[in-house]
């Protein structure tokens, strides 16, 4: 990309992630751990730096302590002298006395940031999604089309498109209609079995963005949301184009996940322990980075017949000790200690968890800082589990952060 052109990246990281409760009880959705060592926002930020974008504001508001710490510790890698930065911008109530109302409001409230930087182009991303993308191709497309707004689009089967913003395009990829969460989604003109949905990735010319934000801010009936208000108000009036997502994940099927629910979250993690996961974390050409503290390597002990430390089909991180326990088909974050004769399968375990002897745990998500006493069973008696914990539609049991017995 030509260096003279000024691009600012705004990452919207204010999402509450209510359907991910209780994982979002104490943290914003972008800060939810994923794949052992990552947080959800690491994917978006890695994409940005892999795309050469190093002027990034992260707009945060809701329960942002955990997110702020992660960004401070893990992403403080830019050179301000070279004009690079990743800055956290909490809701400051500069305009009005309210917290951000919708996604557009969070940008509107921070118009002063655009004033300082005066970028030509603003790239707006969501900190909620997991995917790999080179934003350079998107920005290139935006310029070639001489667009005011370009929306990156992903194809999903028509019957699954109702929970997204659905685009209707013409043969030049110009957007002719946009409906947020339509009951009857418009099929793609290229393939009638799929609909084109917005990935929440927008490239705006700064001028038009500012104009439309002010216009929207003055509308009484607006909820100040890009999908519900800004984009529909631009379609048919401004030059709005759809950019078909180009996946850097390099697999047969394109990968983009809006990890909206506990079950979707669980499945996306479980994908990683497959022999051939769809999400490729091992591509050195498109690295995903995160914050990691210094840790001793993971370790297993006891190789006896009865008392055997075993880890199969799993991800296991630094600082873990598997002492005479059996771990199968699970994703384990750093600093987890498993004691003898316990069996853990199909589970996701966050940092700093201790599992005592003779526990049996199946199909569970155990959040941070949990101590599980001797002989506890989870995932074997749904009725019992439902009394004590959140259980998802598909039967995934969630043990909340810091839970005590």
């Amino acid at each position, binding site marked *: 990309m030509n260096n003279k052109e000024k691009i600012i990246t705004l990452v919207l990281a204010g999402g509450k992630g209510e359907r991910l409760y209780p994982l979002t009880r104490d943290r914003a959705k972008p800060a939810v751990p994923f794949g052992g060592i990552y947080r959800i926002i690491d994917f978006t930020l890695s994409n940005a730096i892999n795309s050469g974008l190093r002027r990034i504001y992260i707009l945060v508001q809701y329960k942002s302590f955990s997110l702020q710490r992660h960004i401070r510790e893990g992403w403080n890698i830019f050179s301000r002298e070279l004009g690079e930065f990743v800055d956290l911008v909490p809701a400051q109530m*500069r*305009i009005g006395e309210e917290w951000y109302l919708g996604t557009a409001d969070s940008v509107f409230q921070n118009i002063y940031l655009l*004033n300082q930087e*005066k970028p030509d182009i603003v790239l707006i991303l969501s900190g909620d999604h997991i995917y790999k993308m080179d934003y350079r191709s998107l920005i290139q497309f935006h310029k070639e089309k001489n667009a005011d707004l370009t929306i990156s689009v992903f194809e999903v089967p028509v019957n699954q498109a109702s929970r997204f913003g659905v685009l209707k395009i013409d043969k030049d990829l110009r957007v002719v209609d946009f409906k947020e969460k339509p009951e009857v989604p418009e099929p793609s003109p290229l393939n009638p079995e799929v609909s084109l949905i917005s990935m929440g990735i927008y490239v705006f010319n700064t001028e038009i963005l500012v104009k439309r934000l002010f216009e929207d801010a003055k509308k*009484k009936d607006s909820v100040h949301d890009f999908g519900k208000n800004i984009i529909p108000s631009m379609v048919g009036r401004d030059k709005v184009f759809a950019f078909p997502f180009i996946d850097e994940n390099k697999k047969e099927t394109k990968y983009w996940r809006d990890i909206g629910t506990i079950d979707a979250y669980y499945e996306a993690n479980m994908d990683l322990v497959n022999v051939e996961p769809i999400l490729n974390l091992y591509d050195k050409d498109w690295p995903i980075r995160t914050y990691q503290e210094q840790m001793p390597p993971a370790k297993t002990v006891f190789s006896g017949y009865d008392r055997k430390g075993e880890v199969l089909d799993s991800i296991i991180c630094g600082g873990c000790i598997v002492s005479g326990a059996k771990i199968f088909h699970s994703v384990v974050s750093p600093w987890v200690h498993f004691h003898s004769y316990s069996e853990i399968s199909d589970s996701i375990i966050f940092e700093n968890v201790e599992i005592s002897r003779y526990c049996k745990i199946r199909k569970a998500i155990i959040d941070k800082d949990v101590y599980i006493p001797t002989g506890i069973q989870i995932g074997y008696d749904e009725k019992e589990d439902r009394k004590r914990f959140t259980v998802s539609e598909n039967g995934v049991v969630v043990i909340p952060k810091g839970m005590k017995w």
Partner: protein
Amino acid sequence: MKKTILLIEDEENQRILYSEELEKEGYTVFTASDGLKGLKIIEEKQIDLVVLDIRMPEMDGLETLSKILGERKNLPVIIYTAYPHYKTNFMSWGADIYLVKSSNINELKEKVKELLGE
């Protein structure tokens, strides 16, 4: 009912001149000498339109405008300043009209009429 205008302008002579001219057009005019005082009047009185200078002590016009946008989204605002360069400040785009002061006060009157829908 007479429409009411709030004129926020720090320079006394201009404040008197503009308010008299607007009163001649049949409006009720309140005045304030800076943004803070102006915001207080917006809170207390029923105001239909604001004429806003930019360079002022205490709270300047752009900050005042951002507060107005937060409080009373739909209140029409005319920025009335001697300086055209504030147009490059995105905040100024929040006003309905950006008018550069000149000796021709009719320009202001016309814009006021336009915004008040008369």
